[in-house]
């Protein structure tokens, strides 16, 4: 059975994770569940940068992949990075099982603005669908409304939708439906 498993780590709002789980099940037309397992991200922390390495998080997550896990999505409030970039919103194993997203830079508070739970929910869904899209071997899409459009700034995330464009959608659902 195809199932998206969500693995929260760090102090993250349970309701936000629950909403994301429901939203992902709807987007991909598969079931989803939130795992109780605990992931310790300490080894991925870089004290010089004050950030966690998303690549190392993905390596840690691999230990939690079970036969029941079709896709495993990590969700964290920690700020993530890869060595050459100042930050990433998330990272995925292209064509693999694991992906991780960070809510750190998706909150309005990060930009000095009042808390907006609906906007955060929408942004987190887009980033989660985007990273899971990479696990289906999709690369970035030129259609700025497609969820697979590259988004290196939060304004670009707000510009796109949580849907796959007509070109990307069949590629995803060829895998989902198989």
């Amino acid at each position: 059975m195809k199932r998206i498993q969500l693995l929260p780590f760090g102090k993250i709002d349970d309701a936000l994770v629950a909403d994301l789980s429901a939203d992902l099940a709807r987007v991909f037309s598969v079931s989803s569940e939130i795992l109780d397992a605990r992931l310790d991200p300490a080894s991925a922390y870089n004290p010089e940068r004050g950030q966690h390495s998303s690549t190392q998080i993905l390596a840690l997550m691999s230990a939690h992949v079970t036969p029941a896990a079709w896709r495993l999505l990590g969700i964290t409030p920690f700020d993530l990075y890869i060595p050459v970039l100042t930050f990433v919103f998330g990272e995925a194993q292209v064509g693999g099982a694991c992906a991780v997203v960070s809510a750190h830079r998706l909150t309005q508070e990060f930009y000095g603005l009042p808390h907006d739970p609906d906007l955060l929910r929408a942004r987190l869904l887009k980033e989660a669908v985007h990273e899971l899209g990479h696990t289906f071997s999709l690369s970035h899409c030129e259609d700025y409304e497609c969820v697979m459009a590259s988004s290196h700034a939060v304004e670009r995330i707000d510009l796109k939708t949580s849907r796959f464009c007509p070109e990307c959608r069949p590629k995803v659902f060829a895998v989902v439906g198989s």
Partner: protein
Amino acid sequence: MSKANLLIVDDELSVRDSLGKWFREEGYDTSVAESAHAALGQMAEHHFDLALVDIKMPGTDGIELLHRIHEVDPEMVVIIMTGYASVETAVAALKDGAYDYVSKPFDPDDIAHTVHNALAHKRSDQENLRLREAVAKASQPHALVGQSAAMRVVFEAIETVAPTEATVLITGESGTGKELVARAIHAASPRRYNPLVVIHCGALAETLLESELFGHEKGAFTGAQYRKKGSFEIAEGGTTFLDEIGDISLKTQTDMLRVLQEHEITRVGGNHPIHVDFRCIAATNRDLKSLIEEGKFRPDLYYRLNVFQIHIPPLRERRNDIPLLADHFVRKFAASMNKRIDGISVAAMNRLTQYDWPGNVRELENAIERAMVVAQGPQLGEKEFVLRGNQAERTHRRLEDVERAHILSVLEECNGNQTMAAEILNIDRVTLHNKLKKYGWKKTDKTANVL
């Protein structure tokens, strides 16, 4: 489809891997190399559009690799990466031909834009080069046709003067192709990518000509509803061709003298001088020296214009160009009219070469066009040509006149060589000499000016 082929060169594995993966997700075909040696090896195997090169690497560093890359592929875009931003190294990289310089870690949006812009810049450069080549090809002075000695002098003059900034005065009868020569000079000059503005001075009334040449301010005169740039301003960086310069009034000549001297214009109704960068080519079918003597043309303007003079001989002085020109026009009109006409009959061509063409090349072109319109068969025959003016006279010309015209024509073809001309005419040299003496031909005359 891949956006482009990228090569990432960095001795740090984590940088290569993370950046490579990140750019692959962005839709680029990405290869990685751990050293300059490995990078050059990959370049020998594959084509890359852009390289991201770390400045500090053991052995050959980023700046040296930048040089080697450009030796192999001068069009490849190189962006230098460094862990420590410093103005000195940034300046060194940019001076050595790097497109840009980025400090690690990069803001994702910034690096995405830098790479995107660099590739857009490269494509734009390539497109610009293609367009320049196309423009250069399209602006070739192909319409200037001729192989006579007189036209060879014209071609050499164009070649000599075109690359300079010298003002050129083109003289010649109406229809000889003065504008074509001006266009050829512009097309072969460094100003060729900027405008060539043509003003037919004789066609405009004095006030209108001033407005055309110098522009006008809004409200300068009745009907001046908008500010308008003049020809000298429009030709900024290019060439202004002033045709029929001998027809302008003394007042406009005074204004024009100032423009040529100062390279400044003042719009009609305006107060402020505006600097203009243009090259001037002027042309006339009139004898400017006679006009000066008559007080109708300013001598100082004449000397300002007559820096380099090109005289285009009338068609009757270069009859051996007529078949070449006629064939050229037949091909031109056959293509534009979509008619299958191969050429001109021998009899018709003889008639064309004997005719004096008072309207010069323009008249010949018009005659061919008319003949092409009415022609039914695959060749233009005598009946298709209606030559103006002296047709009746020609029909009833005396034998002596025909002989004279023919002998002098042959002599011109032989560049004045009487022995060669006598051989062609199948008469002995003494007979030819006697006939030339009878016609008043002098050996010192230039054959180009005899007929």
